[in-house]
């Protein structure tokens, strides 16, 4: 009995926080838009009993999905999101790896402090931090002022409201999610492995490629998923830093919900986004599983 309770806790959690909201969204995506509160029909009227349920079921259809398939705006947005998420995941990796490596190699007494510094940005509002980037990247922003002052450039760079700003925003925001798993992998690596590699004829550099890098692979994979999955549906960053030409599905979703007030289409967009993300999520789970097994 006790065991059953223990196991049921995470499942209950999953049902309440994921399955129920998902079913509601799924249901909305099968409805039609309407000028009402809530802005869709049909709504379930249980006072009519069984007949009410039948009427309700009758009103649900796949129309919104056909609409999404017809209008190429949507699949372009999905593709563009995939591309932006993939590129920014890779960029995040490039920035995070040396960072994590340096942390893992730092003296033991420094490591907690460095770890703290990585997590520190989470203590302030995410929105404020993204806004701060506007001030840095804009035409009259700090970055341009600084570069003009040093004489490195003569005309201000146009970064804000382009995809570059979106990449910068995503890399900045999700950096800790990449650093932490890579750091964890590097930190538990036994230093004598590198000595053994050197002893067997490796240079420092090849020892890194043959030993350190492969041993941090699990961390890289985990970090990549942790960045890629949320970046895919990211809305705030493209909305604040991206331009009118930045196409991301999160933005489309937001516009459908709040500008068009077309909840059913917005829900359909969300359901498909989830279906797309399920693949990397499953891969991520598999990777974690393998990781645990490898550690015995």
């Amino acid at each position, binding site marked *: 009995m006790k065991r059953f309770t223990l196991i049921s806790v995470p499942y209950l959690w999953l049902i309440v926080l994921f399955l129920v909201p998902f079913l509601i969204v799924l249901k909305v995506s099968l409805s039609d838009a309407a000028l009402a509160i809530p802005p869709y029909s049909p709504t379930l009227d249980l006072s009519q009993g069984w007949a009410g349920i039948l009427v309700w079921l009758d009103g649900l259809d796949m129309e919104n999905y056909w609409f999404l398939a017809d209008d190429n705006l949507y699949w372009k947005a999905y593709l563009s999101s995939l591309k932006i998420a993939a590129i920014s995941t890779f960029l995040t990796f490039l920035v995070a790896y040396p960072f994590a490596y340096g942390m893992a190699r730092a003296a033991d007494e420094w490591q907690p402090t460095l770890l703290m510094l990585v997590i520190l940005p989470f203590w302030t509002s995410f929105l404020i931090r993204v806004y701060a980037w506007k001030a840095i990247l804009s035409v009259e922003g700090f970055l341009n002022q600084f570069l003009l002052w040093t004489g490195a450039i003569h005309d201000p760079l146009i970064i804000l409201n382009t995809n570059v700003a979106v990449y910068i925003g995503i890399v900045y925001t999700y950096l800790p999610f990449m650093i932490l798993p890579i750091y964890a992998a590097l930190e538990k690596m036994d230093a*004598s*492995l590198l000595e*053994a590699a050197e*002893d*067997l*004829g490796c240079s420092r550099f090849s020892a890194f490629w043959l030993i350190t890098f492969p041993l941090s*692979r699990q961390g890289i994979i985990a970090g990549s998923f942790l960045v890629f999955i949320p970046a895919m549906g990211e809305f705030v960053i493209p909305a604040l830093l991206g331009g009118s030409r930045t196409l991301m599905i999160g933005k489309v979703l937001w516009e459908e919900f709040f500008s068009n007030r077309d909840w059913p289409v917005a829900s359909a967009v969300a359901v498909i986004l989830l279906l797309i993300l399920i693949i990397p999520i499953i891969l991520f789970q598999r990777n974690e599983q393998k990781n645990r097994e*490898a*550690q*015995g």
Partner: protein
Amino acid sequence: MTESASTGTDFEPWNDPKAVPLIQFKNVTKRFGDFTAIDNLTLDIYAREFYALLGPSGCGKTTIMRMLAGFETATEGTISLSGQDMAPVPPNKRAINMMFQSYALFPHLNVWDNIAFGLKRSSMAKDQIAARVEEMLRLTQLEKFARRKPHQISGGQRQRVALARSLAKAPKLLLLDEPLGALDKKLRQETQFELVDIQEKTGTTFVIVTHDQEEAMTVASRVAVMDHGKVVQVDTPANIYEAPNSVYVADFIGDINIIEGYATPISDTMVSVDFAEGQPKIHTSCPTGLTAPQRISFAIRPEKLLISTEKPTESANILSGKVVDIAYLGNISTYHVKLASGQMIKAQSANTRRIRRRAITWEDDVWISFTDTAGMVLTT
């Protein structure tokens, strides 16, 4: 005590003034912060030697190995290999391989790739590498596990992988840090023979750290006994056992009775030792001689003592006591005998009879006798 193959055939370069050592430590000191791990060490290791480092935990054995492999630099002094100062040579450029005490197997590579790792870094051809790895797998009886990852094999198997990996490159000098500790006795003896065999075939010089003195005795050409970063004695296993230069060495190697006493010279090579009120003096040889009476330790191995229920008629030394304990070790038994003056003496005798018919048992009054050359007089 089996005679090692290397010592069997007049292999004694350390007695040859013309021989040039392969490895030379000259006044080497190693400090970690203000802790001195190796203290002014000078030693020579000759090519084709099987050199064993023996000593209690923390005395600096691994540190010596790490300095040889190039992972630590000496704070003072020089280490040279074939006459060349090794200080500027990085670990990957030294013709030295080391088997790590912690094995340091690469967890992401299987057994086969672990063993092949060093070979792949050399210019060896692919099929030669494969042949060499197979040979190593056979040698260490790991053929069945070639495709397993290190975490999928047992501790002893891991140790064998580490051994195979360090042997694979057939280095000029092989450093083995407790190579056989996790193996069962039978496999350990087989591997010891293999090591000696490999050494004869390849001419590799071995430096081996071991906690198992029997192992040191079996395989080593010479043994260095260490204490707190210093080498106390370097000698052949037989000399270390039969002629230790100090109580420390005598006590560290094998079982021994140490009796403190006051020695008076009676001739150039004989002394008599007064060790307790009411006990006869011990007559013993002292090849180096004593110039004046002084306090000494008389040391004698348990197997050099004869134990009997009847008083022996003629023996240089005869003591009487009572058996307080018997440790049965299968082929031999150790009798703990308490003398009337309180000292405990351990005497060993072979079990030639079945245990039930043993002549001596608990609480028996017994006689202990030994010749005047059986023991040693140690002044330090």
